[in-house]
């Protein structure tokens, strides 16, 4: 414990440097805007701004990009409460009771409860991350190529199991991502794969053009400007304070949401989205007045908003400790660290303590900044919402083009982004989630290397994956997950994932 506190002190010495503070603030500010604006999620925001970090060192880059991620969780509540439009997918549940509170004239109280809940949960999540990540990283030092192969397979299966679009669709998308990740020179033999004499493809397809295309441009193509409304009335500053009863009603849901969110966040999948749905269900189930849910229940805002923030912090545990991205956002953040020459994983704590602890300490500071940003400045963010979408989306297209081009100064990358935009549009039409595709693309090189190293180690014997205890345990969990999925498919059971899909599709009343 003493060593952890010493390391945390080192982290704060990094996080309190004026330049690091500035980038943390910038990340939080952009993240809040990303969360506020419908149509741009954290993934698109991080992807578009990734090239901007190339001139920075790894610490500032990851501090800023992570700020965008957890900042977007704060910002997402503003549009949900004031307009009943979830600025971010994880704010869908906040729409229900947050908007109902706003209709009763309690918009200010709902915004404050969401912000305070997010602050408490975010800080609690960072405390848990501080305690949990280093021991896991130490344990992961025992991992060899077979364990990593099994871990990556488990990550994909977990993602597929948790997905609301179903196991075959998710794994199909992950396979497409893995296949895209095979493009370029094979690092072990030097063979060119699927590069079709285009020299720019020799280095493979970058994650930035794919992510920006699928989530930035794809989202714009799917959102005709006439469907986006701008009518909103911001609450006055004096109306922001909740009354005593509202504080009391929100305390326990915030605490429960924080713990639940962190636990869900560690598991691969769209953790922050699942956590908010789960928290809403839990709060409604244990409430003495469940009939109030949907009509402006304080717990219906406090629980989900805390859970999605805590989950976004929890998702950093496998990324930092194991080098395993559990979702597309952490995949892009991991790519950002790799671009800066800092491989995440068990060695990160020892080899780059300034980055690891500086990043963790910056999240404590970032959560404070977000609390200060979100309450007094709610009127400013609401003003941003008044920019007509017809002017907003051309700007996003411009940022997409600049962002992607600046990565390698390659126009081929911009064309790839454009193609991926079309792919993203079509995938949405056919009800595919593009997130596993990005995840597959990111893990493809690690997966291929560990798979081939394992086979070389064992002289071609597949049994290496079941003879080593850790790999064996991980594969047993894989089999269990496949069994559970097959069972639910056979029983045609309408479980929580089907309800999640329905609610994500826009029917926010399908929640119990």
């Amino acid at each position: 414990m003493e060593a952890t506190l010493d390391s945390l002190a080192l982290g704060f010495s990094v996080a309190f440097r004026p330049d690091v503070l500035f980038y943390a603030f910038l990340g939080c500010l952009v993240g809040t805007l990303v969360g506020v604006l419908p149509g741009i999620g954290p993934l698109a925001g991080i992807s578009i701004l990734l090239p901007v970090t190339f001139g920075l060192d790894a610490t500032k880059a990851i501090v800023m990009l992570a700020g965008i991620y957890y900042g977007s969780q704060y910002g997402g509540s503003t549009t949900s409460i004031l307009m009943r439009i979830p600025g971010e997918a994880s704010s869908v549940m906040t729409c229900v009771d947050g908007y109902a509170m706003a209709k009763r004239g309690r918009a200010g109280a709902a915004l404050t409860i969401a912000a305070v809940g997010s602050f408490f949960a975010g800080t609690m999540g960072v405390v848990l991350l501080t305690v949990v990540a280093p021991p896991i990283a130490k344990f992961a030092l025992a991992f060899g190529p077979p364990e990593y192969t099994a871990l990556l397979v488990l990550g994909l299966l977990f993602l597929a199991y948790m997905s609301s679009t179903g196991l075959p669709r998710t794994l199909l998308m992950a396979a497409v991502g893995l296949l895209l990740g095979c493009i370029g020179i094979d690092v072990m033999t030097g063979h060119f794969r699927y590069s079709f004499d285009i020299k720019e493809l020799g280095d493979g397809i970058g994650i930035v053009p794919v992510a920006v295309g699928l989530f930035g441009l794809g989202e714009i193509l799917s959102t005709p400007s006439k469907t986006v409304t701008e009518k909103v009335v911001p609450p006055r500053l004096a109306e922001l304070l909740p009354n005593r009863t509202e504080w009391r009603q929100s305390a326990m849901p915030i605490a429960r949401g924080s713990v639940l969110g962190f636990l869900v966040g560690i598991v691969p999948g769209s953790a922050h989205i699942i956590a908010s749905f789960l928290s809403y269900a839990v709060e409604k189930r244990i409430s003495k007045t469940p009939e109030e849910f949907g009509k402006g229940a304080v717990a219906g805002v406090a629980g989900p908003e805390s859970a999605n923030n805590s989950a976004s912090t929890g998702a950093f545990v496998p990324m930092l400790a194991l080098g395993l991205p559990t979702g597309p956002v952490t995949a892009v953040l991991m790519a950002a660290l790799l671009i800066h020459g800092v491989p995440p994983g068990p060695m990160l704590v020892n080899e780059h303590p300034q980055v690891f602890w500086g990043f963790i300490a910056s999240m404590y500071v970032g959560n404070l900044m977000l609390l200060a940003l979100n309450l007094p400045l709610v009127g400013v963010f609401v003003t941003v919402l008044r920019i007509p979408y017809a002017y907003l989306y051309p700007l996003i297209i411009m940022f997409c083009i600049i962002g992607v081009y600046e990565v390698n100064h390659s126009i081929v990358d911009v064309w790839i982004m454009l193609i991926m935009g079309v792919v993203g549009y079509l995938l949405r039409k056919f009800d595919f989630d593009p997130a596993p595709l990005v995840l597959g693309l990111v893990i493809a090189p690690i997966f291929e290397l560990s798979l081939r190293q394992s086979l070389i180690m064992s002289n071609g014997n597949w049994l290496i994956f079941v003879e080593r205890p850790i790999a064996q345990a991980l594969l047993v969990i894989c089999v269990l997950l496949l069994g559970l999925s097959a069972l639910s498919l056979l029983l045609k059971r309408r479980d929580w994932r089907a309800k999640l899909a329905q609610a994500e599709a826009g029917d926010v009343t399908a929640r119990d």
Partner: protein
Amino acid sequence: MQMRRDHVAGAVMLLAGALVLAASTDLPFGTLASPGAGLLPTVVIVVMMAFAVLLMLGAGASPRLGAIDWADAGHALRVLGVTAAAVALYIPLGFVASISLLLFVVTFVVERKPLLSALAFSGGATLLAYLVFGTLLNAPLPRGVWH
């Protein structure tokens, strides 16, 4: 049999898998003890095609193909066309000309905003972006014919 959404999705994925498999014939598979560059792609394509078949088998429960709402396709095509033109002109004309044209055409032609608003918006936004990225962040933006 009525054509369903997942019939088409599965068939497209199956076809894509078959095409990539055909393009993979020159990649050495190697042996299990010494895997070649073709091992992972082959395994992934097989998995992908298997899931595509699975998707088609369960397609009966998916919505009818005609139920897909294509009402936004016209807008998407217009935006895509203008963006593609801007990308094609990005290097030859440079950042300022291609991006201001993109912004102007999208706001004035696609979104039918007033001419003066569209002109002011496209000019102002391009200038601001140039100042932020080109000057402040020192990002080498393409200058095209003005080089």
